[in-house]
């Protein structure tokens, strides 16, 4: 019984950290552009594929070297995607086009992965050995997930509050027109936000590849759970993702243990509906940010 609670708590927190990382990558792009990038789940899975192709069963040194490579590769891809997504917004008054184009991107990446890699999940071996917590064997990647969540939380916090570029991006999320009027290179800052989001999910996918489903059709599930984590925490609040992510992860684990693995996504969906009904601005969201 105690072991089960422990497993649920540890695994829930670890898987939840992944959702929190995806939620943070949502937040930075959303803050700078108002866009929620539906393709981020597939970009995350690409990080996992990068781990398979670049560093499967590799030694620690090579693996450490490949970590930033994977992050940069995904960041480049997300930046290109961001550039294409933002391009029609330059002229069009209507702003929903990003919703369509990011979903289209998500579909295209999934389709390309399906065509080139087939429908099956890849198994990735990481260099970090599994360890025991109170006698329960825990894959090393779980620790990496939690570590990555805290690393990116603090890195983003320092970047957004204490560097010029970070402050400029924060200014975009406060008041778009004022930032433009103040002479900030809005489009380049937005692309930078896309790049950072790619760096977050690219490295995250690489680190946790051994414990996620590295498969062509997995992206949508991750993007959804990441979104639920973002909504629970309050969209725009990175602090909220630290709570929202693990909460979604634990609820998913609890569902898997008590009801069945097939019902995890249903649990996330119901959690999302419940949060939107009861507290649409999330736990840490500003109520003014809510658009009702």
């Amino acid at each position: 019984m105690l072991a089960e609670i422990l497993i649920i708590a540890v695994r829930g927190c670890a898987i939840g950290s992944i959702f929190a990382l995806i939620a943070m990558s949502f937040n930075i792009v959303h803050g700078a552009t108002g866009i929620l990038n539906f393709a981020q789940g597939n970009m995350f899975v690409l990080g996992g594929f990068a781990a398979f192709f670049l560093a499967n069963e590799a030694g620690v040194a090579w693996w450490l070297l490949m970590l930033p490579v994977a992050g940069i590769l995904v960041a480049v891809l997300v930046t290109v995607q961001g550039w294409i997504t933002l391009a029609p917004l330059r002229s069009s008054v209507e702003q929903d086009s990003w919703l369509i184009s990011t979903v289209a991107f998500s579909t295209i990446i999934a389709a390309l992965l399906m065509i080139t890699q087939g429908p099956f999940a890849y198994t990735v071996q990481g260099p970090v050995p599994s360890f025991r917590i109170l006698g329960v064997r825990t894959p090393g990647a779980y620790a990496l997930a939690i570590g990555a969540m805290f690393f990116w939380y603090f890195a983003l916090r320092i970047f957004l509050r204490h560097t010029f570029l970070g402050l400029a991006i924060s200014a975009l999320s406060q008041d778009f027109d004022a930032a433009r009027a103040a002479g900030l290179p809005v489009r380049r800052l937005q692309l930078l936000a896309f790049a950072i989001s790619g760096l977050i999910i690219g490295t995250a996918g690489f680190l946790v590849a051994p414990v996620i489903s590295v498969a062509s059709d997995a992206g949508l599930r991750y993007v959804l759970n990441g979104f639920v984590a973002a909504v629970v925490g309050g969209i725009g609040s990175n602090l909220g993702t630290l709570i929202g992510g693990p909460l979604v992860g634990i609820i998913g684990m609890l569902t898997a243990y008590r009801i069945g693995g097939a019902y995890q996504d249903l649990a996330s969906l119901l959690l999302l509906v419940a949060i939107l009904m009861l507290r649409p601005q999330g736990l840490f969201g500003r109520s003014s940010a809510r658009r009702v």
Partner: protein
Amino acid sequence: MAMSETMAAREGGARGKPRFSSDLPQMLIGFVLIAITGFVPSILGNSYWVHTFQLVNIYIAASVFQNFLFVDAGQKSFGQGVLLGLGAYVTAIFFGLHDWPFLLAALAGLGAATAGGLLFAFPALRVQYFHLGFVTLSAAIVFPQLLMSLDKWTNGINGISVSMPGLHQEWFLGLSPLTLMIAVYPMIALAIHYAIRRSRLGRDMRVAALSPEAARSLGIRPGVMRFIAFIIAAIGTGVCGILYLPAVSFVSPQGFNVELSFVFFFAVVVGGRGQMLGPIIGIWIVFILPNIALAQFVEYRLLIYGLLTLLTVILFPDGIVGSIERWRARRGVTGRGEQAFRVDRFLETLEGGRETRPGDEVVVEVRGGTKKFGEVVAVDAVDLKVRRGEIHGLIGANGSGKTSLLNVLSGLSRLNAGSFLIKGEDATRRSADRIADMGIGRTFQTPRIFPQFSLWDNLRLGIDARVGDGSADIARLADALEAEFAQDSAELLSHGQRRLVEVMRAVLKEADIIFFDEPAAGLSQGERANFAKLVRFLARRMGKTIILVEHDLELVWDIADTITVMEQGRVVASGSPEAMSNDPAVQHMFVGGRRA
């Protein structure tokens, strides 16, 4: 085609103006296209094409409802395939596994689809936009998972086969009852979409989608509109599911994965968002191209869907039909210049009333109203009394709390302390739509004019928002406006004319209290003079009470009966224009002439 053209000419009016909306001809062309693809294969006896176009036409019907939801209600759903699947699967379960009569099973299927729609509709009461995109998308992901894991009821991966020879039996000309139903249903779906769009409900939905605060100031509740839209779309799509079952004779979880929902969504985008023909052309391209025309590359179909959609968004965001329509509209546009929208002539018809003076009855009263935004106190313990029939000017520097007060009075934001009464009733905690229904009209700093509507439909929103029966005078005015502007576009109107449209909207609403938020900003000198005349007419001839937030002090002094001066959220002076001219609190505002 010939029929649609004659009808087009008739609708265009006697002056032969090009029609504003091509919805009707598009719908009629749609009927023809659906009829051809629905009936011709059966008449020719080609069973492959019969089957293919049955599926295509079911998908077209589902996309019609997606289109309605997408544009008329402004909601992006990635889960319409779930509703179709619920309709099909639940019908299959009761008909195929439990031997219920088909109609009864179909009713259960429809109920299930509606219940699924509720899952989308309830969050829609609170939130919109990408939130609902994620709710619907996760439903699309969860649905096939549930079909697999609830195998006790659904037969799991094996799916359910049904046999319905009766529906496939030929009646005449090779047509079976099923063929007839499946060909007629998308036409019904199109007709429903067209009818809703032309109805008050449709206009309300669209306003709610385009400008929630304008909607609320017209007495519309945006959440309720979204809710209704999702339910209508769920029922319409559920029927598609019921038809899907006999058409395919088999349901399995793989048939209802995310891809199906994406097909409907992408079809609407590629075909042309909001166009009546969009779903038809969209499904033909998105579904037929990869699945039939390029059947040897069927594993590339997701890639083709995605690429087609991405290219559409980047290269021609209006979609195929939308781009053609845009080209047609551009050729047909007939702007009537500065004078396109004049109201004097119309108001003359109301000129019978005698001059009224402000009464003693207080119709708007604020008692100690305080509104804070975080630390900032925008409105600070304000007391205000406005008498019936009075023109009440509210002046003060930027940030003095005028617009905040106006937003409180119209219910768009709520007081933190104090209260206010409208016509003697406490309205402090009432929502904007309920306040609008108390006979309040308002204009916004940027006029809320919707180019999607004809000029007349823009005005008509006022009639839609009216509570109770209107007066005969206004009905006559409305008829005259309709005759003149039914086919005019509102897109080319100048800023000043847009302002007039908003004012006329409030007149048609028969609001007896009207709030103006900086109405003179951006008006030319001539427009300003006309506007002053109009406001005076509203108050003196029509007995309306006017609250005017304005920076143009000359205008305010010219027309106002009472002037209230605000500074940093507080009322610093209030009285007649003459008294105010001599008030020391106001003197400094006149430095360098009578402009603030």
